[in-house]
């Protein structure tokens, strides 16, 4: 027994030293690449013990790690199917700690929590809290394995697909915007026993700028990298920095874009490959996220505009376009803060559209098989940029005067004209069947070269298309709904142009 005691003590000391050494190395690595940012404080759980390194835990369990992991997987999945969520999160947490090196595990569990578990909640608040749990999980992995394309992409997907595009998106997107804004420090902390995340951590300061630690570069650019090459500099919100300030919070799509862009750069420059998604999908996501962000701002702008002029909020999204289309240039309102909000969004949308177009073009340089699909996005984004630029100038003109007002009205006229022409071209290019096009397009003009047609001839061509379609039996045109959307935009532009003409 005497001989064994020193050996046992030595083994325990060695085990502890392993954990300490591993944590030291981990901290050193993080000091070089660490992004404290959002959700940073949720790492440690109830105490420093909960920050136990996965490898120390694995060592402690020795050969039992495998059977324990198997048991945890089967138990947690059975519980999920039985809708018994008690200690489900604990089991998922243990799986994360015991299998830190398997990205497929993490991708599955992030998706599992964000989708399968959140849907079992009834209240939106609890659904949202469950999705935040999934984000917490992803961020913990990100801390252990920074710049892993699978995890970064997963974070972006949660913001884009779940928070931005699910059935409950209205609730989620509003909460994301609100909670990214600055607020006083909370009295409860992640270290408190029983603490549970119900809100995102703020990422903006009181002025709407991103917190400095979230934009601080941490990874030096390699010397051999071409000057025009993209590079992730290690700042958590590197790709949002150009768009700040965010006086009305950050859109979920904006955050999605930030992470999708990081993932895309990790793929194109870092040469990483996502284990499930194709490189084409990863590469296309920044553009799609920017487009969704632009549309999100567009929706917000329209609602702010409606509320500013005390208009009721129509249930159909497209009806919102027409509700303020006839707004006269001399309209006044006392809700100036709403006008500011609308103006902010309207000035951001064209920029987002142009950035999205640039991203699409970048993507198409490498993946030309998607050309025709994404060209329609590009064309639409251009038209939206024109329309919303016009909306911005028009709205700004309502409370401007003198030379400024005249310039704004002129700019709005130009933008609306371009927007109407843009949407007409889109209809002709993508929503008119070839046989009809063959009959109506001028000689030498094809679907691909519709840009050649002067703007003033476009409506005439569309009228002819309508006549041809009207002559056909009912129910033959499959594009009715899509085309109707574009007509809304054209009508809005035309009504605004009419208003402009009336004051000239």
């Amino acid at each position, binding site marked *: 027994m005497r001989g064994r005691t020193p050996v046992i003590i030595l083994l325990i000391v060695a085990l502890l030293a392993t954990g300490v050494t591993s944590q030291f190395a981990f901290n050193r690595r993080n000091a070089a690449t660490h992004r404290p940012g959002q959700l940073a404080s949720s790492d440690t759980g*109830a105490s420093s*013990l909960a920050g136990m390194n996965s490898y120390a835990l694995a060592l402690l369990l020795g050969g039992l790690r495998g059977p324990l992991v198997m048991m945890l997987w089967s138990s947690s999945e059975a519980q999920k199917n039985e809708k018994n969520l008690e*200690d489900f999160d*604990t089991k998922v947490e*243990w799986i994360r*700690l015991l299998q830190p090196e398997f990205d497929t595990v993490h991708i599955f569990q992030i998706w599992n929590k964000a989708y399968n578990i959140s849907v079992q909640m009834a209240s939106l608040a609890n659904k949202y809290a469950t999705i935040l749990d999934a984000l917490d999980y992803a961020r913990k992995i990100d801390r252990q394995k920074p710049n892993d394309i699978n995890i970064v992409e997963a974070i972006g997907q949660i913001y884009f697909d779940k928070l931005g595009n699910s*059935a409950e998106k209205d*609730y989620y997107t509003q909460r994301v915007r609100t909670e990214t804004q600055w607020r006083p420090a909370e*009295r409860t902390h992640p270290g408190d*026993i029983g603490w549970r995340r119900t809100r995102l951590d703020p990422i903006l300061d009181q002025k709407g700028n991103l917190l400095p630690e979230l934009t601080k570069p941490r990874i030096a650019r390699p010397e051999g990298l071409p000057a025009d090459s993209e590079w992730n500099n290690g700042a958590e919100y590197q790709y949002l920095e150009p768009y700040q300030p965010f006086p009305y919070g950050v859109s979920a799509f904006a955050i999605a874009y930030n992470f999708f862009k990081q993932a895309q750069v990790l793929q194109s420059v870092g040469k990483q490959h996502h284990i499930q998604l194709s490189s084409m999908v990863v590469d296309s996501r920044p553009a799609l996220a920017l487009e969704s962000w632009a549309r999100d701002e567009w929706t917000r702008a329209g609602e702010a505009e409606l509320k500013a002029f005390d208009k009721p909020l129509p249930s159909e999204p497209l009806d919102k376009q027409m509700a303020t289309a006839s707004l006269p240039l001399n309209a006044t309102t006392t809700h100036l803060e709403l006008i500011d909000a609308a103006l902010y969004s309207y000035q951001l949308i064209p920029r987002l559209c142009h950035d999205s177009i640039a991203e699409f073009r970048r993507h198409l340089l490498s993946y030309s098989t998607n050309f025709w699909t994404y060209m329609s996005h590009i064309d639409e984004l251009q038209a939206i940029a024109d329309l919303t630029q016009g909306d911005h100038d028009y709205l700004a003109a309502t409370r401007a005067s003198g030379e400024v007002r005249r310039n704004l009205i002129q700019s709005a006229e130009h933008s609306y004209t371009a927007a109407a022409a843009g949407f007409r071209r889109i209809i002709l290019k993508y929503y008119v069947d070839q046989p009809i096009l063959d009959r109506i397009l001028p000689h030498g003009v094809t679907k691909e070269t519709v840009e050649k047609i002067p703007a003033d001839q476009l409506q005439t061509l569309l009228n002819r298309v309508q006549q041809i379609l009207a002559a056909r039996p009912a129910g033959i045109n499959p594009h009715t709904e899509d085309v109707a959307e574009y007509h809304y935009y054209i009508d809005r532009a035309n009504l605004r142009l009419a208003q402009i003409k009336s004051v000239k």
Partner: protein
Amino acid sequence: MPPIINDNIGWWIAGAIVVIGLVGFGLRDLLRFSPRRIWAISSVSFAESIRRRVLWITPLAIIGVIIVSQLQHPIDEQDAIRQTIKFCLFATGLLVTIVIIILACTNLPKEIDTRVIYTIVTKPTTRLEIILGKIIGFARVSAAILIIMGLFTWGYLHLRAWNMQRYIARQLIDGDVGPARKPSLEHYQQSGLLQARQLQDSDSYEIFAKLPQSTDSVRWMFNEQDFVVPFRLGLGDVAPADWQSGQPLPPLMILAHVYTQEAPLTDEQQEHLGGDLLRGLGTDTGGPRLSDSQSTMTAKRPAPKVAVQILDRNGYTLLAPNILNATSLTLHEDQPLQIQIPAEQVMTLVNHGRFFVSITGASPGWMYGADSNPVIILAPTPQPGKFNQIPPAPDPRDPSRHTPPIFQGRSGTHGQQLRGGPAEFNPVGIYRFHNVPLPASGQVPFEMRVGIERTGDELSTSTDDLTHLSISARNLKTGVISDPITITPESLRPTYFSLPASALGDGNFELILRNHTNGHWIGLQTNSVFVVTSHQPFIANLAKSLLILWLMTLLVIIIAILCSTFLSWPIAVVLTIVLLLGRWGVMQLGDTLGSGIGNQIATDFGFSDPSQAKVVSSSVEALTKALTAVSHVLPDISKFSATEDVERGVMVPTARLAESSAVAFGFGLPMIVLAYIFLKNKEVAP
């Protein structure tokens, strides 16, 4: 074999082993029985374990529990406590079982190998005293471990609960709590987190369109609900006097009287009724698709229709509506429904014994009603035009009358659905409680756990719409209904509420539930609502669970010592584990070991040759039958379930202690006698 023997064959076999073993083989040793010698031997076994520092493993287990507790991810404070209790008791059970198996399996073989046993058996000690002494010695060791771990569990949980309560208080003071969570936190603050309560669930749960009154002869349900009537058919009820096995049985007739009443229509329903289009019913996923179902209406209220099917005792379809040609039967006033059960299906019903006739409302815009005896089954007699009337099965509560129809809601993911919305358009759920012991005054606590489903339409909102459920109580004696309270349950989370004792009368009452939130469907089951009838200190409940664990270790010791009397210690350890887990393992395999497994194995292993396949198949079938038969003589360790009740804060019932004792001693005593016989016939000096 007489029932008293057949029903208790296990006890008889155990008794026979004990009596024959002790009286037949060991009468002399039995007459020399000395508790003092047994205690002396047990003291040495205990001292050996202590001096080998076995108890030093408890600090390691404690550290492990503390570490694992930090890795929790609870859904709320109560869940954190629950998980901590689980870890503590799991670690305790695992630790004590492993330690005891190793100690008990190695002790006798080691004493024989080292020949220490020479100086024991050459004293006037019987083999029986040696066996018993060792069992008691290791039982004392396991008790010591359980006491240490129990004290730690009690202290650690109180510490955690105290910390949680401070955190709850801070949250409530700050007001930083969502509306759905606040009632739960207030409940935890008031009742504490370490509870041991006794819960009583309801006797029945039904859903009606209108709240039934005692004077009502007819009770009502909405469209898509059903009522079921139980029947039990014997051959004597349906077979003609000259019937012989193998002959077809005559067809039967279901006679059902269903009342109808126009149901009030919502604005949306009226709008649909004015529409021109007929659209199909929503999908059958069980999710709430009210708006889709309502869209089946044509320009005017459709005729009232029902679907009839037969369900087995578990509620699964036995005879679908299409088999009975009863998918959509139009109801006519004062005209009962006649549904024929085809002759070829009658034997199915007889073989099942108990089944339910289910009548489901199939047309919107109507309420469907049933009196106390809406359905009978008619069996033909030899006389033309004459039938035997087979009534519903007797009411278990009052065998002198038939079981009245049971009204159910549509089945959803979480149980029967209680649709939400204004009261005049939506059903009411009723939980019936009988003979509940209640205090004379004050508030009576209840607990509820439900699942909630939402229609898609309700999600496109920027505000969170909580589910509002109102609950009132009706005193069954006086008929008085209390003022309703409103709670906001969350899906799959416990919700706590209380009602005044004065409203619940003498313990016979109904809870009336209404869901007020449009687009929300609350899934309820019979055991979704409990009344808390009494409380007990946590330490008492913990002590009971530790006692159950101790009884389990007693059984483990006995099995281990039995195995070690005739096996080397490594094989004794394995056999001990097999004997302990054998029955549980077979239970887990469950239906996998049913008939057909032989063919399945033969197919899976690709035995294409029929004769080979048959050999493999019949061997596997025989093996599984043997396995199942052997498992019946092994102890059922699931009876030592010590953690679930304590985790959930429910009092460990005395019956559980009795069950555990029965298994421990029922299996233990014969094994002690067998161990004695083996040791007595063993040459301890090879």
